[in-house]
Structures are given as C-alpha cells and as structure tokens.
C-alpha cells in the first residue's frame, strides 16, 4: 500500500478509534454496566463517575507508561546486562568500560561546556533582545525575525552554519562568511580591538556576572538575609556557588590565553577541526536557535512587570541600567530560571547538530551522539544504555525541581 494512503488510513483509524473508544466506553458505562435508572440509579451514577476518569485517562496513560516510563527502567536494566552474552547480568561492567574510554570523558567535558555556555548565552541574548525590542516601534517584526530559527531543524541549521564556516584554499575567494571576515584581519589595530580587546571584555563580563550570581547564592551565609530555608536549598546554593567560583577562576585563567595567543592571521581556517574551539562553533548553532525562545518568554515577563515599580525607580533617580538590573531583572528571575532550565534540557539532548556537522570528530563528542554511536555503530547496547542513564542522571535535578514547583503551584 502506498505510504500516503497508509498514513491517511492511520489517521482515520487512530482518530476514529480514539473517538470511538471514548464514545462507546462511556456508553457502555452509562447504559450497560451502571445504568442510571432502576432501583440503584443514584449509586450507579456515583460508581460510573468514579470509573469515568480512568476511561478518559487510559489511552494516554498507557502510551505514556509504555513509551516513556517503562523505557527508563528497561534502559537501567539493559545498562547492567551484556547483549553479546545473551543479556546476562554483568553488574557495573558496562559503566566501568565506559568510564575507561577517553571518548566518554571528552563527551562529558564537552557537555559541561555546552551546559554552561549555551543556556547562558541564549538567555543573555534573549534578555537583551527582549529589552531592546520592547522599546521600538518595529519591535514585533524584529522579534519575529530573531524568533524564526526556532522553526528551522537542527539539521537545516547545521547546513546553514556549515556554509558560514566553509573554507577555501588561501588563493581562492572564500565562500564562508567567517573566513571572509577572518581574512580581513591582518594583525593591526582593528585586529587587536576585535580579537583581543573584545573577547577580553566579554570574558571579564562573564566572570563578573558569574561572580555576582555566586554572591547572591552565598548571601544567606554572609548574614545579609535572615530567611531560613530547607537543607535541600542550602545544599543547592552551596553547589551553585562552588560551580560559580570555579567558573570565575577558569575564565580569569583563560584571559592569559587570550592576551598571549598568537593568531594565524591571513590563513583561512577550517573552523570545525580546531580542537576545543570547534565546540564553540557548534554551540553557536544552538544559541542561534534558542535565543528566540528565550526572547519571547522573557519579553512577556518583562511586560508583566508592574509599571509602578519602574516609575518609582525613575522618580528616585535611577538610570536605565540600574532600572534594568536592579528593578526588572530581579522581578523576572523566576522566568529566567525557567528559560535557563528549559534550554539546559535541550542542550543535554543535543544530537542532530553534532551528528550532522562533525559527528563527534575533532574532539566535539557529546553524550547524546556518543550514545547513538554506541547503539547503532558499535552495536553495544550495554554501554549505550549506560550513557543514556548518565543523561538521565544529569536531567534528574531539573526533573525534581519541576515536579516540586508544579506541586507547590497546585496547592
């Protein structure tokens, strides 16, 4: 049968089956099992109403259980078995094997880089775009254009950026915009400004923001706030602060590298094969896609800020930067956290970009691609499952946080 016809048939069967199931199961409940008439009418109606929710829920819960809940446990089980030994239980052998692979640690390192850079950059750009576009007449159109990459597939974006990063031999015209721009730099004042001073300022700014976050996180311990919190939040604060301090240290150390590095001016670069830095060229693709998402949500949050708070600040003589960082940003902090975690989830699952652009070569491996490699190239389901479990472990803090928030909200 032609697939299109099959698809149509599936829609009809799927939709018809669903609607039919709901209709007839309800009819069965009301007319046959517990009819709302006769001597027990009242009791029957109550009973039917007790069962009905489960009729409504059953298909969805069944699919959720089978397609998402069960696989979590099955993957956990598979990660403890060996396929080549007929699924025999092997304990933690798969994990041991994985931990001894250099490629795995490379993937972990890169994933951590992605986790830090992409959410931070997307949120920062999104916040910037939201704040700026809210103040101009053509803001809606500008937003729509910055938001557009959301509709583009990771694969499509990879092709787009492969063209940006394309390299030609030095004697030919460059067709990748990045190399064309790069060749304009020849080591003069402009090169110094753009390739040394600007990164320097950006890294310093990043370090400053992170230091500020660390300060906020540590505030309760410095005696500035008397609010008492649960031990879970205290631990999260300490972990966050330690990570932040470490990030400040790393970025300050990288300043030395920026100042003293010797850049190969005049040589077209194959950007995707430069170890370590190629990770950032891949991240640019995801940042490009996710900024629009951050912008849309943060823009809505910015508009939700009560006008009076801003006006009061103006009356008190605050300048625009003070208003933004001290009045607006604190008020939308919860939304920033949501945006940050949502992008973090996307980053943890990022697969298509790396798969299409480098396939993990040149030290760009990430966990999701590592897992795909193990599953479908090496055919090693044990190690593949083990790496999937690692992704799950990385996701679970966010999972717990989301559930915690959802329950709090429902009360």
């Amino acid at each position, binding site marked *: 049968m032609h697939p299109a016809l099959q698809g149509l048939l599936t829609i009809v069967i799927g939709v018809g089956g669903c609607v039919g199931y709901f209709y007839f199961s309800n009819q069965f409940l009301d007319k046959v099992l517990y009819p709302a008439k006769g001597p027990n009418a009242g009791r029957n109606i109550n009973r039917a109403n007790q069962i009905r929710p489960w009729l409504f829920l059953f298909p969805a819960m069944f699919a959720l259980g089978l397609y998402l*809940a069960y*696989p979590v446990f099955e993957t956990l089980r598979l990660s403890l078995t060996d396929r080549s030994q007929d699924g025999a239980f092997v304990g933690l052998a798969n994990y041991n094997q994985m931990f001894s692979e250099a490629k795995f640690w490379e993937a972990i390192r890169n994933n951590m880089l992605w986790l830090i850079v992409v959410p931070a950059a997307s949120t920062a750009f999104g916040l910037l775009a939201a704040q700026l576009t809210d103040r101009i007449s053509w803001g809606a159109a500008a937003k729509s254009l910055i938001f557009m990459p959301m*509709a583009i597939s990771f694969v*499509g974006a990879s092709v787009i950026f492969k063209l940006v990063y394309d390299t030609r031999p030095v004697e030919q015209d460059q067709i990748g915009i990045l190399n064309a721009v790069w060749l304009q730099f020849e080591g003069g004042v402009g090169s110094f400004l753009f390739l040394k001073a600007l990164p320097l300022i950006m890294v310093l700014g990043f370090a400053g923001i992170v230091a500020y976050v660390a300060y906020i996180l540590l505030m309760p311990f410095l005696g500035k706030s008397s609010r008492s919190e649960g031990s879970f939040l205290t631990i999260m604060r300490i972990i966050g602060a330690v990570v932040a301090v470490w990030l400040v240290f790393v970025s300050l150390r990288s300043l030395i590298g920026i100042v003293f590095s010797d850049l190969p001016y005049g040589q077209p670069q194959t950007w995707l094969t430069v170890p370590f830095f190629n990770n950032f060229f891949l991240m640019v693709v995801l940042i490009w896609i996710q900024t629009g998402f951050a912008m849309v949500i943060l823009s809505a949050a910015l508009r939700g800020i009560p006008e009076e708070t801003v006006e009061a600040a103006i009356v008190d003589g605050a300048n625009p930067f003070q208003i933004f960082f001290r009045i607006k940003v604190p008020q939308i902090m919860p939304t920033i956290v949501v945006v940050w975690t949502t992008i973090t989830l996307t980053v943890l699952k990022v697969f298509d970009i790396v798969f299409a652009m480098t396939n993990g070569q040149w030290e760009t491996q990430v966990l999701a691609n590592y897992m795909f490699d193990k599953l479908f190239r090496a055919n090693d389901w044990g190690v593949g499952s083990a790496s999937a479990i690692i992704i799950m472990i990385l996701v679970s803090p966010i999972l717990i946080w989301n559930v915690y928030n959802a329950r709090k909200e429902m009360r």
Partner: protein
Amino acid sequence: MDNIAGSKSSLSWAVNVSVLALVLLWLFPTVGLFVSSFRTADQISASGWWKALFPTEQTVQVRTGGREAAVQDGDLFVVTGNLLTDEGGPGADAEIVAFGVSSRAIGAYQVGETAEFSDGEETLALAEDGSYRYTSVEEPGRRGQRVFLTAVTAPEFTTDNYRTILFSGTGQDNMANAFFNTLTVTIPATIIPIVVAAFAAYALAWMDFPGRALLIALVVALLVVPLQLALIPLLRLHLGIGIGKGYLGVWLAHTGFGLPLAIYLLRNYMVGLPRDIIENAKVDGATDFQIFTKIILPLSFPALASFAIFQFLWTWNDLLVAKVFLIDATGSTTVMTNQIVELLGTRGGNWEILATAAFVSIAVPLVVFFAMQRYLVRGLLAGSVK
C-alpha cells in the same frame, strides 16, 4: 520608562541601531543559504554569496573570430563581431570596464581605444556594446586571438537547483520522495496525540478522582525524560511485537513522546476555562463526554493549535526518532533531515545541492511558523512561564 510624560529616551537611536544589528546578525546565515540555493555551482564556488547580490566585476577570456570569419580588406585581414554575445562571451547585459590582448596586461585598454598586439601587425578596436574590429597584416590563425575582458555582470539567479531537487534529480539529489515521506510521518504523528491527550487533559483538569495530583506530577516528570532513554527498549519492543521499523512505529513513537507536552499544555489551558459553563452544563444533564466534545474542545482551540504547531515542527524537523524507528536498511522511507545529513557526507562540497535541499526542508516549517506565530508564542508562554 518611555511612557513617562516629557522624558524621551536619548538612547532611542542606539536602541534602533542595536536591534537592527541583532536582527541582521540573526538573519544573515539563513539568507546566505537562501541566496546560495539560487546560484549555479560555478557561481557559488567563484565568490561569496554576499557578492551575488551586487554586480560583480569579473575577467573572462574570449576569442575573436578565426580564419573563416576573416575578410580581406585591401592588404589587411579584418574580423568583426561581438565579444559579449559571441560564443563564450559573458552575455549582452555585461558592461565592459577594460580589456587587454596580453595575459600580462589584461586591463590595459579602455572601451573605444584600439589595442595593439605585441607583434605590431595586429590591432583590435572594441566598442562599448562589445562589437569589435580586428585587423591583421597576415592571415589570422584558425582559432582567432585571445582577448581578456574585464566586465561587470548583473546579479544572476537560477531556479534550476530547485528543479533538480524536486523533480529531475536522480538518487540522492531528488528530495521529492523524502518530502512525501516526511509528510507521511508528520501528519498522523501530529493529529493522533492531540486526540488522546485532549481526553486525558480534560480528566486531569475537571474530573475528581483519587491520585489526580500524582498523575499530574508524573506528566510533569515525563516532560523532561530524554527520549534517548526510550530508543533501545522501544526498538526492541517494536521488533518483538512485529511492528519493526516503519511508519507505524514512528507514528507510535512520536505520539508517545509528544503526549506529556500535549497533556500539560491542554490541561493548563482547560483548568483556566470558566467553571460556571461546565457546572451549568452538568446541571442541565450533560454527560462528561458531551461537555468535553461540545464545550471544552471548541473552547480549547488556541491550546490545541499551539500544541499542533509544536508537534508539527518537532516531527518535521526530527532526525533521531526517524533514524531509529523508521529508516530501514533499504532507505526507501528516508525523511528529509536524514537525506540532508547523507548529502552532507557525500556531497559536502556541492553547495547548490545542499543549500537547495536544506531550503526545501526548511520552507514548510517557516511558512507554518510565520502563519501561526501567534499560537506558537501562546503555547510557549503557557508551557514555560507557569
């Protein structure tokens, strides 16, 4: 701060300029691919796409007419013709900037001047419209003389790439099959989860039963479970129960993976519907099934549309699920994303094919995006801000 009377921000122009820069930066990569998809392979590899938008100056090598075209005029042999429109010329639209007759001085003469060849026995006069008059004391050679033209050509675009990708291409270069496969995957995978989720969302929003809070928490938890975890167990399951790799499997997988978001979005929306309507209907004797189909479903249209767009974009753009659950060894059910990745591997340098293929696959989501942006934004806000 703008809306306080009497204070107009002096930074207004700076804001406008920064937004413009940001928008251009964000558009630039996509525009590059778009422009490249309308250029020929030679054009793409000759110059950057950003130059394609403006007239380009290029130097071409052409030849005057040879011995057959020569006419004897007194003691001179004369050849006349048009360098622009004759065979190998850059075409009548091109504008000649300079010309030369020796490879060491390719731009030595201006239009209207008469060039002298190094042997002193031949001359070439060239007019602005490309017509030339070549004279020689001796009989010209069979192939005519080389002339170097520096000409400015207008931007030139072609739709041939799209013709190749959509219709005439063979094998990997033809995306028509993959396009229909993608469509076949996408439409059922968008519609079915909506129906399933809508009923469940109604139950979670408006029906009272023990364990409801727990189920909602479960949905929120499953919202973030990486689908990577589901790949092996479900593939084993599909192979075990005989579905194997194919459309049915990919539809089911997309349905399963889309359900948490669908239930979450729809429930959040339905909870916000006015309680009075539903209670009135109940008092009037409507059953839950009637309330759902007659009242809730029509009122929830915005939320349904939001999710439909999400799911459509997600299934259309998906690579991983299709690779695992759909595409078998024969590759006859390949989807566009997969075919593009394969093209990246085999035709990495053929940008005219790559750019066009990528744009064919991007075009449909872009249309949907711009047409239904309102619902997309609403869905994003409902799904994340809460």
